[in-house]
């Protein structure tokens, strides 16, 4: 039985190789589709991995405790979306207020975010607040600095309203510019010591949300809601999945072309190789075995294509995983609030590799089997004579 199967494989291999250019064209198309599938999927996997890591490091940590009336997606809730903070050493309170910056005579509406200077839960370089001797030290992200032509050491007038709605204005100093891929903590905002923001606004010990480190097992008062790391990352992950889906059309078209080529070869085999099929049967092959042989021939295209595709894609994607792929639309994506790095580092996982191989071989086998089913209905004598 195993010997028969091995013989079938040997015969199938010889048959497709002897078909020459036709075979190599089919294999090339299939290998190219395989390469694209691996490349795009590993690119999105790499982006997801990197984005999740960055957001945990810079923004979400292990979760957030958010004031019920504050919705980060609704700027209308900033004004009244704060409450007396929760005291716990493993959480960092964040208070958000609105204000205007006036760099070089321009007006810039911004969010003023206060966070404890001594926090180490997220990567924001808040230690700079204590290290600076300035009266109003603030830190900003690189994108905010680039977009608004701001640099370290700049003194800019900030206008805000206190808890009573009275205008106040002071000169702030940029004491640090941090580099992050997370635009939601960078664009259109400045960070300062929460103690200073409390003093400026009169909102003593108030917070819009808290960043949590580790497991927070304490019971929460009804004013607060806990959002886990997974809850907070949900939007980003579903956006990557959606992007993955929308880019699939390219390799679906390529796969479709390659599978049509296989289908065409198989239809061609059934009609043009009738004498050969008849000879196999005359030599003692059952019709089932001939069907199997021709199906294996079709599947062989996929096997060869995945071998060649893997030989090219594994080293290529591994190299790109180190060097990174530069994106031209990075700034545009960041403007839209999407967490994306300057470079994307594709990540080829064994799950992705083997599942892609499995699906390509399975689809090719099905497509190969469909035309050769007719062999079972063939008359042996007619087949030997080469009659249609």
């Amino acid at each position: 039985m195993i010997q028969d199967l091995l013989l079938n494989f040997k015969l199938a291999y010889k048959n497709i190789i002897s078909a020459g250019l036709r075979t190599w064209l089919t294999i090339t198309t299939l290998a190219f589709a395989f390469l694209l599938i691996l490349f795009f999927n590993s690119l999105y996997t790499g982006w997801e991995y990197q984005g999740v890591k960055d957001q945990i490091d810079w923004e979400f940590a292990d979760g957030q405790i958010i004031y019920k009336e504050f919705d980060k997606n609704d700027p209308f809730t900033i004004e009244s979306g704060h409450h007396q903070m929760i005291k716990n050493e493993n959480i960092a309170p964040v208070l958000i207020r609105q204000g205007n910056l006036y760099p070089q005579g321009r007006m810039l509406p911004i969010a003023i975010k206060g966070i404890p200077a001594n926090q180490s839960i997220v990567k924001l370089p808040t230690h700079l607040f204590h290290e600076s001797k300035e009266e109003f030290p603030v830190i900003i992200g690189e994108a905010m600095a680039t977009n608004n032509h701001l640099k370290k050491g700049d003194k800019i007038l900030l206008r805000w309203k206190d808890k009573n709605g009275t205008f106040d204005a002071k000169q702030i100093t940029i004491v640090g510019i941090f580099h992050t891929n997370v635009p939601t903590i960078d664009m259109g905002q400045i960070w300062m010591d929460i103690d200073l923001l409390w003093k400026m606004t009169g909102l003593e010990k108030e917070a819009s949300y808290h960043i949590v480190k580790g497991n927070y097992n304490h019971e929460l008062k009804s004013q607060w809601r806990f959002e886990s790391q997974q809850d907070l990352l949900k939007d980003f992950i579903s956006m990557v999945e959606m992007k993955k889906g929308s880019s699939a059309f390219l390799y679906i078209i390529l796969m479709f072309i390659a599978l049509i080529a296989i289908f065409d070869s198989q239809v061609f085999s059934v009609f043009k190789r009738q004498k050969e099929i008849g000879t196999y049967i005359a030599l003692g092959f059952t019709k089932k075995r001939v069907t199997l042989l021709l199906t294996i021939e079709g599947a062989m295209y996929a096997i060869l294509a995945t071998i060649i595709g893997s030989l090219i894609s594994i080293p290529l994607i591994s190299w790109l995983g180190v060097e990174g792929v530069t994106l031209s639309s990075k700034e545009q994506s960041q403007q839209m609030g999407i967490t994306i790095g300057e470079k994307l580092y594709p990540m080829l996982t064994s799950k992705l590799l083997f599942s892609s191989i499995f699906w390509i071989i399975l689809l090719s086998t099905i497509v190969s089997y469909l035309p050769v089913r007719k062999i079972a209905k063939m008359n042996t004598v007619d087949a030997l004579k080469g009659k249609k």
Partner: protein
Amino acid sequence: MNQRAKMKNILYILSLLVCTIGYAQDPNALLKKIDQNMYTKTKVSTTKMIVYGKRKTKEIVSKGYTRGTKDSFSEYLSPAREKGTKMLKLDDKLWIYSPSSDRTIQISGHMLRQSVNGSDMSYEDMMQEKKLVDMYTPKITGQEEMNGEQCYILELNAKTENVTYQKIKMWVDINHTVPMRQDLFAKSGQLLKTINMSDIRKVGDRYYPFKMNYKDVLKDGKGTDFVVLEMENNVEIPDHIFNKSNLKK
């Protein structure tokens, strides 16, 4: 002492007397008079807002209806692109209707800080709803000529903490009791805005500046001019004007 020196002394004493009389003016009464001139029971006016941009100047003509200090309704008459835009302010709420999108939106939160049509005036500035005498304690600090008129210099300090500008410096025309200039300060003492008034005209029994320049001093540029084209005080305004349903009409 010769004749000339005597005359000098008399003039000096007289000018001191004039100043003393001036300073004896009750600042609260002065503020009340300003409020009387600036605020009427109802007001219907056609105004032109001139926004000086970096490249071009924009002019918006609108017709406004005001009832007391709390309610107002305005409709843009020109340019064609803005025509039909309506704004309704009822107490502390503000709505804007845009004919291009046929939608009414409520302006609140951070949107109140946005400028009105790119001008130096924010929606928040339009929300000022109390009379000066209710919000500030005035003090006359001197006299000075401002925008061509002899003025008292008035320093206004907020009576309570919930006032947008804690301190205002105001130059008040002695003859008509109308502000000729206002400097609006932040709590820290930082000057934020200046409003310059000119072209004082009599409307009924009150005086009103027909030209105002609003300037956000923290921003570059020439500021924004408001020119009153027509004004009527204390006229009957039907209630339906100050109704939300009037926005979509």
